[in-house]
């Protein structure tokens, strides 16, 4: 479609026909205040805060529903527009409880932001405010406060338009309006927590994150959700070195603005009690703490002794760099027995891929699979196992394999938690870290390589897996240990055409496509 040229606040901008003024303004970097408008949802036009003045139009117009026209002259900061906005702001606040001190949204609340920007410092409203139910449990995950709600209906529209479920509705009329779980329905959408994110005020809050911390104390880091191979971009919030919440980060190529609840809530393992904090070796049947030097030497000796007979299970939850370094070791040992443990994850049409391994595609590109004559995981149970390397993986859910491993003479485990596998079969345990504690990259289901950033620091003496695998590789004579994940990725890029030219810096915030075809 042809482009349309218009002027916004004295600056010309050219946008495709059909664009709305608010979007055109955003293109210029002007963020017209808005509550109900969300780029991922249909226009509702009910908050009335995005009013702008358009020359030639007698009344102020909502910019979210105003299509651009050739030669249109828009003022977002004219006295009329500002006055209209201020008027709406005043009305939004008269029945708002102003309980920012107890509201989790404080700090990332649009109402606060706009109030600060152009709101009044007092109120002309001297009546008791309209009271509505507070702390209503919409579901296990979402808590609702009707008094704070500004009825923008983003939540209703999200569930309807994106999650495909009419689970929320509006009840009552006028200033007694409330969002409510629709009659006869339950809020069960697996994407329901997105309504907490898109709620511009504190009406919808996450039951999980409720009252945990004020958001301004959070150290916010952009990284990737490790729960499935979609690789949704997330912003992780941490405080006291504890990972407190994940919220989706916009990436139009991956997850747009959303993420699923299960991924969002799967953060418990980071601060779990059973995290490994020191290397362990088995002496007289018991695992005892040791130094990294000793543990790495024991691991290298064990691997060297096993040689080509080593059974290796490499996790597709490891980063590309780590998979590369692990492959380097396995190639040096010459073992054809290598496999990835599949991990099931519910699948749906929106985001969930059905593959619970966040780097399944990376493992595929790097060829972590049985070589000719090698035993895959399926064949582990049958015959005796001499030595095994569980690289970032456990077999807690496969007791029959654990039985077989228990008889092995050497089992090296690199993992972040003291799993049953560690307790039962490990000979040497190297403590690794979770994906929230290290640098690196995942390749998502579409072949997009996306960057991980450390959010919290690992407990005790645990080391990033790339470092462990690098040092282990160095002991086994397959080259110097990389000094950073970036160095590992550059080495990977040099070795694998699919990753050619990549470095952590070049991945940027949104990631880059790996050359898929080359890998296939």
């Amino acid at each position: 479609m042809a482009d349309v040229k218009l002027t916004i606040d004295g600056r010309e901008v050219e946008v495709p026909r059909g664009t709305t003024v608010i979007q055109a303004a955003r293109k210029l970097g002007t963020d017209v205040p808005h509550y109900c408008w969300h780029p991922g949802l249909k226009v509702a036009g009910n908050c009335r805060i995005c009013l702008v003045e358009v020359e030639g139009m007698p009344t102020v117009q909502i910019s979210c529903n105003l299509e651009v026209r050739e030669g249109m002259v828009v003022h977002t900061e004219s006295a009329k527009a500002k006055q209209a906005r201020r008027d709406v702001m005043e009305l939004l606040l008269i029945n708002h409880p102003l309980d920012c001190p107890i509201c989790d949204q404080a700090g990332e609340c649009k109402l606060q932001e706009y109030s600060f920007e152009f709101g009044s410092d007092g109120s002309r409203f001297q009546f008791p405010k309209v009271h509505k139910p507070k702390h209503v449990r919409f579901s296990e995950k979402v808590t609702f406060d009707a008094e704070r709600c500004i009825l923008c209906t983003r939540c209703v529209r999200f569930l309807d338009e994106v999650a495909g479920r009419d689970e929320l509705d509006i009840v009552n009329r006028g200033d007694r309006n409330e969002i409510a779980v629709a009659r006869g329905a339950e809020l069960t959408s697996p994407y329901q927590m997105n309504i907490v994110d898109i709620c511009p005020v504190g009406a919808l809050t996450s039951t999980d994150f409720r009252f945990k911390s004020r958001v301004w104390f959070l150290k916010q880091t952009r990284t990737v959700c490790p729960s499935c191979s979609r690789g949704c971009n997330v912003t992780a919030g941490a405080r006291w070195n504890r990972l407190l919440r994940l919220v989706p980060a916009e990436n139009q190529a991956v997850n747009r603005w959303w993420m699923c609840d299960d991924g969002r809530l799967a953060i418990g393992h980071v601060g779990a009690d059973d995290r490994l904090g020191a290397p362990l070796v088995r002496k007289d049947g018991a695992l005892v703490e040791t130094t990294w030097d000793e543990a790495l030497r024991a691991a290298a000796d064990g691997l060297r002794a096993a040689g080509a007979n080593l059974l290796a299970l490499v996790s597709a939850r490891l980063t590309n760099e780590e998979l590369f370094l692990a492959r380097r070791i396995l190639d040096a040992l010459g073992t054809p027995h290598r496999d990835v443990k599949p991990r099931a994850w519910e699948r749906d049409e929106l985001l969930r891929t059905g593959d619970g391994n966040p780097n399944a595609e990376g493992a595929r590109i790097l060829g972590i699979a049985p070589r000719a004559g090698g035993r895959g995981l399926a064949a582990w149970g049958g015959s005796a196992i001499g030595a095994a390397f569980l690289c970032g993986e456990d077999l807690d859910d496969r007791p029959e394999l654990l039985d077989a491993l228990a008889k092995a003479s050497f089992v090296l485990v690199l993992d972040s938690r003291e799993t049953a596998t560690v307790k039962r079969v490990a000979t040497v345990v190297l403590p690794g870290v979770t994906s929230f504690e290290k640098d690196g990259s995942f390749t998502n289901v579409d072949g997009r390589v996306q960057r991980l950033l450390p959010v919290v620091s690992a407990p005790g003496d645990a080391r990033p897996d790339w470092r462990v695998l690098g040092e282990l590789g160095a002991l086994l004579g397959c080259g110097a240990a990389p000094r950073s994940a970036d160095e590992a990725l550059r080495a990977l890029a040099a070795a694998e055409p699919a990753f050619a030219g990549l470095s952590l810096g070049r991945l940027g915030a949104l990631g880059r496509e790996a050359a898929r075809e080359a890998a296939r």
Partner: protein
Amino acid sequence: MPLAPRLMKDAPPIGRRQTHDEYVAAGGYDALQKALGMKPEEITQQVLEAGVRGRGGAGFPAGRKWTFVPKNTGKPVYLACNADESEPGCFKDRQIMERVPHLLIEGCVIACRAIGAQSAFIYCRGEYPHSVRALEEALAEARAAGKVGNDVLGSGWRCDVWVHKGAGAYICGEETGLLSSIEGGRGYPRIKPPFPAVEGLWGCPTIINNVETLANVPVIVRDGVAAFKAAGDDDTTGTRLVGISGHVERPGHVEIDPAKTTIRELIEVHAGGVWKGRKLKAVIPGGSSVPVLPASAIDVPFTYGAVRNAGSLAGAAGVIVMDETTCMVDALVNLMQFYHHESCGQCTPCREGTGWLEKLVTRIWKGEGAARDIDLLDSVADTIGGAQAGKTICFLADSAVMPTKSFLKHFRADFVRAVEEGGSPVWRARAGQGARAAAGAHG
């Protein structure tokens, strides 16, 4: 008596419905027959030339509206008849629906023919059970007589008309709120664009016309444009049904020639004058949403333009008359309670503002207000909207603002007195009764 009624010319007395046969005997459905012989564009053209303006209040030319229907979209086209006559002071549509329903049905079918629709929905107010019954009975007759249905008058053209009963929300009288309601959703007005003529019911082109507007269509087709334009002037063509209520001797409705009838005549001639021999104080000419006119401003014809020039709107022609004993604070409290209660709550200014207005007026009414509350009331009204504000999707907020602003403009003294004397007379009388009752209970 300057006018021969057109819409109501053969109407039976109140309480009785004109049957199909009576209607046909009086020449009914001739227009339909005639229309079936015309091209749809010709019908539209006639209506356009007749210049009939929407009788629902906005006064938008019906013919123009019909031309907005996009052609060849592949989507069905719908006609919605707005019979949700919920504006306080209005009861004219009811006369048509209950007494001459076939006129409306004929109008609907002709309109469908004109815009290319095959379904018409008459969205009737839930509080009008008689109207609903009359319409449904008439529809059954029409369907039986082949005026409505799969084969309209043997032309092979299918057109059906449905009566949809509302559930009692004022906002469903707003055309897009009405559409939402017909679709089964919450009666929320929709943002425009897209206009309903492009995207209405279920996303299809939909024309929404008022009952009286559609009732005028058979008259135009039957009598021709020139005959239609014999009544009214260039601004307001045809006759208008007007409901007169309030402090008059004979409240009721009347069909008038708007160009030849002033508001004063409506009151003094058609309604028998202000009751009890009192003097007139104020008139709301077009239903409760329009600005009030003081007694001095009512010597104007009842055309859209003339009433607008006088400072108000002809609106939906519900003339509310108030005599000299009326305290305007009492009246405004009543209105504000209504608009607060009826705000759908979609747009911020209306949702929050109507409640604020009610609270403020109530405070003044109860004598708890201060002089500055009167200014605040005016200022809050400006904050919420007004005719030139455009701060809300529909006009409900403005409907609350317009009376407020005009009441304060013309009758500020009443508000000042309420503040100074500790409440409006009605409130003081009520409070006094309460006090006496309390005293009596103790004594």
